[in-house]
């Protein structure tokens, strides 16, 4: 069962690298926020997988909960900040 968790987390890391494309090359700032939000919601699952692999779930579940909260706060603060600035228009 450890192999299933290991391959799942490697595959999720691959998906995170691919969705970093939208975070780097997105045409507007909002596209970048979408990419970062997708990475953060995958990271909570990866943290629980790491906790099950190392048999220390009681520690990693707290880290995953805090990471979910932090991801939500970061996206909310960034979107509230960029709607007052003019940075959301097309940069190209």
């Amino acid at each position: 069962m450890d192999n299933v968790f290991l391959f799942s987390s490697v595959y999720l890391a691959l998906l995170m690298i691919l969705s970093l494309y939208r975070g780097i090359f997105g045409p507007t700032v909002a596209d970048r926020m979408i990419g970062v939000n997708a990475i953060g919601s995958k990271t909570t699952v990866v943290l629980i997988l790491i906790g099950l692999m190392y048999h220390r779930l009681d520690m990693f579940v707290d880290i995953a909960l805090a990471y979910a909260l932090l991801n939500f706060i970061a996206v909310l603060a960034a979107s509230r900040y960029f709607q007052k600035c003019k940075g959301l228009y097309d940069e190209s």
Partner: protein
Amino acid sequence: MNIIVSLLLLAALFFFTAGLIGILRFPDFYSRLHPAGKLDALGVLLGMTALGLYNFNDFSLGTLINGFKILLIVVFVFLASPTATHAIVDAGVRAGLTPWVKGDERR
């Protein structure tokens, strides 16, 4: 038990992959929010269900607390993911991004 956990985890990976393809391939900012908002929440639900079930292999007070915290993560993601999506689309509307119509070039 292991087969159920593996199938749920595989379904979660499938939904994450579908959301990623939607984020990468859709032509517009507003249409990209659609897979990003829905499929990530569904992937988190299925993955957390699988890992919470595997957590209850040996039943004790510690695993019960861990299962409760995993349930708390799922409830929080189901509250927070639509809120974050709505905040992003609100920022886009207020900044004046125009939606993509048929015939425009892909952005």
